[in-house]
């Protein structure tokens, strides 16, 4: 897997690995909220982050390509949080409809991630699966 270059200076990285099952998504949500709480995010920002990480996990679970676990890597900068979500399968945010209306619930989830985060990228699916990279900045 290619090394991801983070733009801002990292103040610390937290890595979480959960089983790729619905009942563990709440753990990802609460861990991300705890991490976000270390930055000057608003309560609303933290709710956005919780939803974005949950949607990413839900997507991985539904698109399940047989991966057992989801890796969530959170990089905190002085004023931003970048979350990378990986499994052994693929995440294709560009496959999402521009507007969700009429789309599938999967599309709705990806649409929400795009709406709630400031930056959403993904690395192409390789041998080790795709990766969704999303950033939220303080005060944006």
């Amino acid at each position: 897997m290619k090394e991801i270059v983070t733009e801002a200076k990292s103040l610390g990285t937290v890595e979480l690995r959960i089983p790729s099952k619905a009942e563990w998504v709440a753990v990802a949500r609460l861990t991300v909220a705890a991490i976000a709480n270390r930055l000057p995010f608003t309560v609303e920002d933290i709710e956005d982050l919780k939803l974005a990480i949950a949607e990413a996990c839900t997507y991985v679970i539904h698109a399940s390509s047989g991966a057992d676990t989801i890796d969530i890597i959170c990089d905190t900068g002085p004023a931003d949080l970048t979350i990378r979500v990986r499994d052994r399968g693929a995440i294709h945010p560009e496959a999402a409809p521009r507007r969700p209306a009429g789309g599938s619930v999967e599309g709705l989830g990806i649409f929400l991630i795009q709406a709630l985060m400031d930056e959403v990228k993904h690395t192409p699916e390789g041998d080790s699966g795709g990766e969704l990279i999303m950033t939220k900045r303080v005060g944006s």
Partner: protein
Amino acid sequence: MDIKVNVRESGGDAYVVELGGEIDVYTSPKVKDAITELIDQGHYNLVINLEKVRYIDSTGLGVLIGGLKRVREHGGSVNLVCTNPQIRKIFDITGLVKIFGIYDDETEAQKALV
């Protein structure tokens, strides 16, 4: 991790589904079951009260949309009660405000059904 689902009859042939807690990929099947059961019993005018819901994700929205589609096939409708600003925001962002009737209290939502 918790969801509360409480179904009760209200005026006319309307039913209220009162939800509480977090509606996510893990808990939304319980919500779907409750709504499906009502529809299977022939109840097509529903108020879904989200006042005590702290969190909803796309799976939860999908369940609400799925319910709405089914009742509409029978000329029914679904009105939502939603006061939490974060949750209202989700309905705004997704454009679902245009599909659901969203109200500030249950009485209003119920009146608007008929």
